[in-house]
């Protein structure tokens, strides 16, 4: 955005993208093609309702409930729907369980595919050419930039979301959380740990 200190509020001094999108919305509204209140509602959904808290609840439940974890492994879409998380960009879910032997990491090299129903909208870095180009070729180097260093013996499996399957990484449950409730556990499940560029937090608050 450009900074301007003059002509504020008269509409003639908008930055280019603000003006461009506003013009488009005006045209579409006048032509009866979109309802601005529907646009408001879409924004509110992804601003306030659908986000990584959904995915954290799924992961925490999987940690605490072996039957749910099995269902999540066998049919992630159905298991996640049990918790009420359904819909756009989550129609065909797959859960990837991290183990000491295998760390999973998700990318979309061709665009910005991301499991909206459980993680909300993707962060800018996930959509950036830097992440999309490098995640497949040098995942450990990428992980290091996120502060994650894996054991030498841990394989890294990168999943490139080239179709409509959407991947949710289930990070390993941190030590020292025996007996914790699902709500308490969910606080340890960061967004990045469900993309695979992070690990779950430990009870001390550090990954």
């Amino acid at each position, binding site marked *: 955005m450009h900074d301007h200190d003059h002509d504020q509020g008269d509409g003639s001094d908008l930055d280019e993208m603000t003006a461009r999108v506003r013009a488009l919305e005006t045209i579409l509204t*006048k032509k*009866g093609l979109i309802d601005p209140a529907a646009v408001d509602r879409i924004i509110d959904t992804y601003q306030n309702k659908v986000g990584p808290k959904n995915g954290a609840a799924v992961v925490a439940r999987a940690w605490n409930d072996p039957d749910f974890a099995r269902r999540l492994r066998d049919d992630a879409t159905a298991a996640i729907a049990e918790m009420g998380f359904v819909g756009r960009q989550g129609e065909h879910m797959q859960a990837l369980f991290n183990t000491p032997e295998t760390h999973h990491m998700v990318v979309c090299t061709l665009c910005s595919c991301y499991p909206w129903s459980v993680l909300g909208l993707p962060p800018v870095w996930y959509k950036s050419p830097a992440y999309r180009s490098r995640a497949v070729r040098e995942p450990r180097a990428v992980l290091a930039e996120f502060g994650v260093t894996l054991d030498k013996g841990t394989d890294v499996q990168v999943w*490139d979301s080239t179709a409509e399957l959407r991947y949710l990484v289930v990070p390993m449950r941190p030590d020292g959380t025996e007996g914790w409730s699902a709500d308490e556990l969910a606080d340890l499940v960061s967004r990045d740990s469900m993309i695979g560029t992070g690990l779950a937090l430990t009870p001390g608050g550090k990954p």
Partner: protein
Amino acid sequence: MNGPHDLGGKMGFGAIAPEAEEPIFHAEWEERALGLTLAAGVLGAWNIDESRHARESLPWPIYLGTSYYEIWTRALEVLLQRHGFITPEELASGDAQTAPAHPRRMPADAVDAVLARGGPTDRAIETAPRFGVGDAVRALNLQPNGHTRLPGYVRGHLGRVVATRGGFIFPDSNAHGNGEAPQHLYSVRFQGAELWGGAAEPGSSVTIDAWESYLEHA
């Protein structure tokens, strides 16, 4: 198409630079761009594959030099004009004559249901899958002018089927108005050394989702 979007394995983009406490949107226009894109999609004139192809068909400097919501906005302008919803003159002037509501205009009270329904792309398919879990396969060296979801970095390389996913709409057809033409979809794993040679990180692999016609037995 070998467009600016096919980024896997490319070099020179620098560090990832995640932003601490990143907001969901960085400007109000980004919110509106997302909402307009989703609301206009409900008109039903194009599908997700056509809209992806509109984005990847933007000029390289635009695709690589602007934010993702600008890419979405520019592609939306292309799609709306292509399908006759708006004219170049309207876009240039930023204004239009008032018209009655389109029969497929999404009202606000339909948004929750539309988003919850999403757009499943799995389809029943009669033919038996050609490949099974464990099969060695080669990604074909396809270089189509049109849309494809076969990334450049796997073409010609050997992988192994790790899962069969059933029938899914074939984007290479669907993006161009040629029908859903569903095919079996497979998750195929490529070892790092197969893709990147000596530069591969030890113990790394990449798994893609590949439609049947992207693959041959190896």
